[in-house]
């Protein structure tokens, strides 16, 4: 059993780079060094048991890549991943029994279930793979139990996935993830493809299951409001790096990094109709050739010469850590914020 104070998941210095593929003959002829996509650079995080850690950022920031490295779908370029005390960095260690305690829910409810399988079989697959239950009767009972747990009915086991709505399919995905009795769930944008009212149902379900089973979540999302509802800890990512991380309440209510502040400011406030958001300048640069120094400096109103040259180091300020020269130098207060 895991000791009490050891985090259930610990990621250290995780880095993932993808080579940009060209046909080899062109590569040969152009004589240029192979270009790399710097998807994730030196990311470290810890998830405590029974808590939710949310990774937040816009597209291309690397959060999905981190999720897939932890899940064992991708092999990291560098860094370590420790889960329940065991090193699971490399995907080949699939046979490690601990792996079954780490499951994943995906974003697209339409692509995450095999269209040709009845959903009873979909949910049964993890149970059968790990031989957790023996005997058809007991298997059926377990499937019924899981379906009821996520708010569906046992009769649904005979149906195919296309007979369900997006929200119901996410419930099925959750049931499948729970089938192997996991301790940890990676949730990659679980509600981004769902309507608002369905999203509320799914988020509530996830919270209820967390409390009931003591699950730990790694929540990947670009939606700060969803994160605010679910997360105990938040990590804000920009172009492959963590720029600010710590207790969710602190990061969301008193953001320090200019990017976090502008991200929060970019959320529309529905209660005030007609109010403009203050848009960020420019767009997220390409991860193939990230800007020098701090990746955010071309868009940052507080950028100075040092920001363009030097990668900022993380500094701890109470419950929150930030990687920003302006914060370090005490210049960050100059940024006005219309956040709460």
């Amino acid at each position, binding site marked *: 059993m895991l000791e009490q104070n050891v985090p259930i998941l610990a990621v250290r210095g995780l880095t993932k780079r993808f080579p940009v593929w060209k046909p080899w003959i062109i590569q040969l002829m152009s004589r240029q060094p192979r270009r790399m996509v710097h998807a994730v650079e030196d990311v470290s995080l810890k998830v405590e048991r029974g808590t939710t850690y949310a990774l937040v950022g*816009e*597209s291309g920031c690397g959060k999905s890549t981190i999720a897939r490295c932890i899940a064992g779908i991708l092999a990291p370029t560098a860094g370590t991943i420790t889960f329940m005390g065991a090193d699971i960095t490399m995907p080949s260690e699939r046979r490690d029994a601990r792996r079954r305690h780490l499951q994943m829910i995906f974003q697209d409810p339409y692509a995450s279930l095999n269209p040709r399988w009845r959903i009873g079989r979909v949910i049964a697959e993890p149970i059968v793979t790990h031989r957790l239950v023996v005997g058809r009767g007991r298997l059926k009972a377990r499937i019924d139990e899981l379906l009821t747990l996520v708010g569906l009915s046992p009769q649904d086991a005979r149906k195919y996935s296309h007979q369900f*709505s*997006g*929200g*119901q399919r996410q419930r099925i995905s959750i049931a499948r993830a729970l089938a192997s009795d996991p301790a940890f769930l990676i949730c990659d944008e679980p509600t981004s493809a769902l*309507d*608002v*009212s*369905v*999203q*509320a*149902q799914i*988020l*509530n379900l996830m*919270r209820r299951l967390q409390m009931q089973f003591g699950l730990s979540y790694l929540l990947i999302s*670009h*939606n*700060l*409001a*969803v994160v*605010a*509802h*679910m997360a105990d800890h938040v990590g804000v990512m920009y172009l492959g790096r963590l720029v600010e991380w710590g207790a*969710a*309440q602190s990061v*969301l209510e008193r953001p320090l990094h200019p990017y976090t502040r*502008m*991200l*929060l400011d*970019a*959320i*529309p*406030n*529905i*209660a*005030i*109709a*007609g*109010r*403009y*958001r*203050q*848009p*960020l300048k420019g*767009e*997220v640069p390409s991860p193939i050739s990230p800007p020098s120094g701090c990746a955010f400096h071309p868009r940052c109103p507080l950028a100075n010469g040092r920001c363009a040259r030097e990668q900022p180091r993380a500094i701890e300020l109470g419950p929150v850590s930030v990687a920003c020269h302006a914060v370090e130098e005490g210049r960050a207060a100059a940024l006005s914020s219309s956040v*709460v």
Partner: protein
Amino acid sequence: MAEALLSVRNLRVEIVTRRATLLAVDDVSFDIAEGEVLGVVGESGAGKSITGNAIIGLIDPPLRRAGGEIAYAGKRIDNLDAETMRTLRGRHIGAVFQDPLTSLNPLLTVGRQLVQTIITHLDLSGSEARKRAVQLLAEVGFPAPRERLDCYPHELSGGMRQRVVLALAFCCEPNLIIADEPTTALDVSVQAQVIKLFRRMCRERGTSVMLITHDMGVISEISDRVAVMYAGRVVEIGTARAVLNAPAHPYTRGLMASIPTVQRTKSELPQIAGNMPRLAAVPSGCAFHPRCPCRLPRCDRERPVLAPAGETQSVCWLTATRDDTASIEAARDA
């Protein structure tokens, strides 16, 4: 009162499948005045995109318009032939769609697409059209518009592509734009930029907009009035402020309450039970009644009609019976 620029009355759109004929848009009516932005909001399957497509005349089998009238600038446009409709589109009615990747022809440069559209609908020479294209690109925020004319869509980022789509929509100075989820595929920070730009361009030209989206945030930013759709019907309509802050219809209220906000942290989100009904199984009477916490006995028998309710107009028996304020209170707290 000035005549509405676009007037939709009792629009019905059917989907013909081999098993049955389903009603995707059921008796939808609304007006858009000149210079006004109407937000049409609803969840997937509510029929809002089909409504937009029906108005521009982009309905293909198995969908077909089965009733109602659409009038633009006082004249009916639902019974026009394809050729007349085509000239109407682009020149008077523009469109912005969700996916900038498929909205732009990947084989043509940005400049060519703009110039082609301008020449088709306006009487300008090639060089004049090109000048106008450069002007438009500058207006939508390209720093070096002349060079950008020769760019292909895949060389641009998502936000830039959507700006090109905006330029295309506005290039013939239409009076009405149908925008279907224009920012859904964009990042949050880029969304804010594009919305601001869109709003500015509309204001400057006095263009009317029918903005179709499921994103309440976008609605709150640029809509003057809002129509809420559910299962192919309009259930509530009113000014943006009224619909978003003081909705009367139980569905709208449930919807607004279930939206998470950054301020309200770590508490159970109010939710609406169940799912939107499938088109083949729309409940009798009020389409929302099986999920409604304030259901009255007549709701499953009689279909409600649009009636004033508080600050908005709502299609609901509960809000229509004005002297029932006590039961409204009781139901709200239930």
